[in-house]
């Protein structure tokens, strides 16, 4: 994209032009770099509407698989917004953007939350309203949602969505994560277990990853042990049903983009078999 094409797109405020600008940034990192280079004070009011449009196009393009990691260009306006906008401006917009992704684009929800609020630059008090909104909206839209809706919100290629939604990437510092305990999300686990009968290869890996123990998770080699406490909390008397479902799923049918996920799932199947054996004994 030439400088002039970018400058023209940046100079207008119409919806159509904004859409073109978002498409250009999304499709080309060099275009995003040109945008970032030329962005000045007059561009600042454009940043949040532009990011909303970029996220919307990303949802349309990648559906449940939408993730900011696959949209490098989107970080150009994101960096500018971080530098130029105050949190009081960002927060209401961010809440609005995040909740747009529930229940159909949970991977993007996690991704947006991560890039805008995670890290040492943001405090728990800043995260709180965003997490509260996420928790509230997810509960409203997913707790009693049909299986089809619940299944559609998870990307079968990426089995860490549930884990990131519940515990976030800062799971090692639970005090920094509002609404980050297993108890906060037990309603979701039960909804997922019910929906997993419709789409086991999508939802069972999500549940398996989320129910791994902290100790196993911290190991550098693939290791899996079900978190007993979590199983009881989330599934209660249905935990045997969950374990049987895990065992009965063919690991080869998983559509994950990460080979480690298959290995984790196979390790979980082994652990589930042992657990069932103990329960029978």
């Amino acid at each position: 994209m030439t400088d002039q094409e970018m400058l023209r797109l940046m100079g207008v405020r119409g919806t159509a032009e904004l859409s073109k600008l978002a498409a250009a940034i999304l499709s080309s990192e060099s275009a995003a770099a040109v945008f970032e280079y030329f962005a000045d004070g007059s561009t600042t009011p454009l940043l949040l509407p532009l990011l909303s449009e970029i996220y919307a196009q990303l949802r349309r393009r990648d559906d449940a698989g939408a993730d900011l990691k696959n949209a490098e260009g989107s970080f150009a306006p994101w960096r500018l917004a971080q530098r130029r906008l105050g949190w009081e401006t960002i927060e209401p917009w961010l809440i609005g953007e995040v909740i747009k992704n529930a229940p159909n684009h949970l991977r993007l929800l996690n991704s947006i939350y991560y890039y805008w609020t995670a890290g040492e630059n943001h405090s728990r008090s800043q995260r709180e309203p965003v997490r509260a909104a996420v928790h509230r909206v997810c509960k409203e839209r997913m707790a009693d949602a049909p299986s089809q809706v619940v299944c559609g919100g998870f990307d079968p290629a990426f089995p860490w969505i549930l884990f990131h939604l519940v515990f976030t990437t800062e799971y090692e510092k639970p005090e920094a994560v509002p609404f980050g305990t297993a108890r906060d999300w037990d309603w979701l686990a039960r909804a997922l277990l019910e929906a997993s009968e419709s789409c086991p290869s999508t939802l069972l890996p999500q549940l398996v990853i989320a129910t791994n123990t902290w100790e196993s998770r911290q190991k550098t080699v693939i290791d899996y042990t079900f978190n007993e406490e979590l199983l009881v909390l989330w599934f209660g008397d249905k935990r045997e049903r969950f374990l049987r479902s895990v065992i009965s799923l063919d690991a080869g049918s998983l559509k994950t983009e990460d080979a480690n996920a298959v290995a984790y799932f196979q390790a979980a199947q082994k652990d589930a078999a042992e657990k069932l054996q103990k329960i029978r004994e």
Partner: protein
Amino acid sequence: MRAIHILARWSQLAVYAFIGSILVAYGGPRLQAWSEAQFETVTNGKDAALPILAGIMTIALVAVVHAFAKFRIQHIRWLSYPPLPFAIVAAFATAPLWPSFRQFGAPVARVDLAIGLGTAAAYAAIWLLLALTVAVAEQVKMYLGRGRGAWQGDSPRQVRDLSDDQIGEWIARERPIDGPSEDLFGFWDFSKRLLTRLARRGHTIVIQGGFGAGKTSLIRLLEQRAARDRLDFYFVQVSCWGFEDTIAAQKSVLSSLVRRLNDEVDCLSIRGLPREYVSIVGKRLEWLYLLSPIDETPLQQLQRLSPILNAIRRRIVVVVEDVDRAGQRFDIGSVFALLSQFREVDSLSFVLTISPHQSMDFAKLCEFSEIIPTPASSDVAAICQHVRDALVRKHADILVDKLDDLAGADRVGELTALIVPGTKLWTSAVIELLRSPRFLKRALRRLSEAWDTLHGEVSIDALLMTCTLREAAPAAFSFLQAELSDILAATRSATYGSDEKPYLKALREDLRARWKRVVARKEFDRRSVETVILNLFVGTSFLSNVETYPKELKQGPSGDRAELYAKRLLTEQLEVSQ
């Protein structure tokens, strides 16, 4: 003295006519009989074809002889130095007057009165016709070669009065100007001063001016002013560019002189002057001269011009250009020796145009030394601003860099220098570098062409800077091209806490040393060039000690996308970034 020269010329022609009339009177009938026999053979006795063929052959023969002799219609006007054909006409006309010697026996066959006068009239008609044809052809050629259109008129223009089209036309044209209406820089007024000096007999002038300073344009204006003021000058322009051999250069000077003089007056008698002069000077006597040895000195050879010039009351000003641009083996002194001899020849003077960097004692060679006027910086600034504004309007791009005021650069520069003495702004530096018509034209032409490709994709002011360096200081531009990656690396700020600082220091010192080697060649105005470089590549203050106020141009070779814009500016291509 003049009367003697006129009398000498008439006497010379009278002798030629006398000898010619004898030859025509007694040789004519025999030649006629012989040629009739030849024509009858060729035409197989067809009576009708005979006069046609004879007529064609005669005209062709006369045309060939006249082409060789280079007779011109202009020659006829000089009764003070009549052309040779006068003698031929007289020979034909007077041939019937010769006796047939019948009192001594059988009469000798001779041309009768009707044939003699008829032939004289026919020859005169053919001569006039041929000369007229040549003159008309030359005028047509000159008319077609002359610039037309927006530059009509006979007085100089002010830069501020020029339209976009006129400035565009002016910068697009590489050749010297054709007339005073194209003079923007005061050459027309300067030509008056030069003519006043030349008007005094024997005065010679050296005009100093750098490459592209407008020396050739000035000479053209000088010639036109002399013609307009009806001064008795003929100008002869000679270029020594590319000559390796000094003898060849001398011969070229003299040949041009004779050729130019022959355009006005019959010079058949001095046609061999260039060859004979260099033979004597070069001591390369040809075998012909063994039979008729030349005992004249080179000066006496040159003085053969004086009778002609005195007779027609004209003076020749030989303008010798590009002496300093001849080949390496060229001995400039030998041309100066020739010019020095010119001073001894009555009615012959010269103007020598030469670079100001040529070290020689001009006072020994010329009475006057003049420095060609340089365009006023306000004019250069106005033209630059005019062209830049037109280019900006032409493409209607969104320009992110503020355009600096070029037309007011002088005023701002003076004010800045007043506040911080020694400080120079890039605008003043660019204008200073472009105060040569050729550099100005070339830089702006390049700017226009490059902007057609790069419009809106680079800063137009940065492009003006690179175009200026490329045309007015090519060595500096080559340095930037060759050292671009190091310059960009050296202008990066050292990363905090890294060990990059010593490396950067070494790199900057090395670059400074390399730059000093370029500067040592003294091919450009160092201060102006360094000011431009510092403003173009912000952060290169380690290269020099000039004081300026650089500011980062958004679409210039500094900042986050420095390399991209630097490559666009230096290659004048957009593709390098894609």
